[in-house]
């Protein structure tokens, strides 16, 4: 398993998979959107607003899924100090934050016509807002340190502590009174939703998952590039170049910065 966790192997594998992932995600999105907007019936109670569900619910699932993934990567980075685990956690955070924000926004747009209010401070909505703040806190924290290793330690600890919020989000509709409707797909006795609505819901969820993996791969590459840039800039090679050319302020600063360490 560790063989696949080497950055070079990761780049090779994901490079080969990328075109297929993009094609699959595009197909799922087109089919999902068709079924969600045209090919599915209106709800007998909620009319056409039920179509908001095909964005809202998959986005909420992804918000939770990404958080669990981020926390697992954080745990792996704390326990095994594997750099790729930390990079995956950092790459996941903005996607999870985006999906969580979309859940809240589309939820508001669904709540206003159906409940008569954009927002209520009940357990489901509040715990989802806390999930968004956990993502934003993680992103702020990991970028707050000059030393990426210290940033990843602090961020991973925050991500792990925040995991307690995940079951609270999931079971909030059962534990407390709320305007929010209870679960209709992930139930012990099987989905209670009609197949004509379950199909677009699941297809959109797979499309969002595909989108997540595409962004994950791209952001891992971005992070690997940035780490390599940092490593090159910090290496003593740069002092020589700055001394030879003496043309770049940033490099001159680097040189001054590392001069003490070189001696």
């Amino acid at each position, binding site marked *: 398993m560790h063989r696949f966790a080497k950055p070079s192997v990761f780049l090779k594998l994901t490079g080969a998979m990328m075109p297929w992932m993009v094609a699959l995600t595009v197909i799922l999105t087109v089919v999902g*959107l068709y079924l969600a*907007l*045209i090919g599915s019936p*209106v709800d007998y109670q909620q*009319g*056409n*607003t039920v*179509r*908001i569900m095909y*964005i*809202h619910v998959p*986005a909420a699932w992804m918000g939770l899924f990404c958080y669990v993934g981020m926390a697992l990567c954080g745990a792996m980075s704390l326990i095994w100090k594997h750099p790729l685990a930390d990079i995956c956690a950092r790459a996941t955070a*903005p*996607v999870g934050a*985006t999906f969580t*924000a*979309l859940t809240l*926004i*589309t939820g508001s*747009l*669904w709540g*206003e*016509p159906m409940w008569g209010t954009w927002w209520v401070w009940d357990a489901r909505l509040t715990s989802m807002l806390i999930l968004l703040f956990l993502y934003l806190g993680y992103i702020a924290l990991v970028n707050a340190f000059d030393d990426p290793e210290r940033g990843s330690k602090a961020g991973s600890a925050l991500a792990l502590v925040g995991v307690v919020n995940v079951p609270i989000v999931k079971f909030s509709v059962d534990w407390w009174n709320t305007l929010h409707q209870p679960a209709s797909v992930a139930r012990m006795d099987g989905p209670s939703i009609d197949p004509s609505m379950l199909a677009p819901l699941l297809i959109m969820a797979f499309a969002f998952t595909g*989108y997540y993996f*595409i*962004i994950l791969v*791209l*952001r891992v*590459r*971005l992070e690997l*590039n*940035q780490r*390599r*840039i940092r490593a*090159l*800039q910090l290496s003593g*090679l740069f002092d*020589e*170049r700055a001394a*030879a050319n003496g043309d770049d302020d940033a490099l001159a600063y680097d040189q001054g910065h590392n001069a003490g360490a070189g001696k």
Partner: protein
Amino acid sequence: MSEFFSMGGYGSYIWASYGIAALAMIVLLIATLRGLRQSKTELDQLETVLKARRPRRARTTDQSQTS
């Protein structure tokens, strides 16, 4: 067609939901791709500079090792 867009009177809520979702996901994708391209350019520049410097460095480290 206009019936489809009005969505039984809820068109504004539904299209706003789909529009914001599409916008957010496209913005994140573009920001990621742009960051990736910038980091690639920066990395290529650094590596060409270092490659040009490498022969001299190799010599100096060799000397320090032999002496």
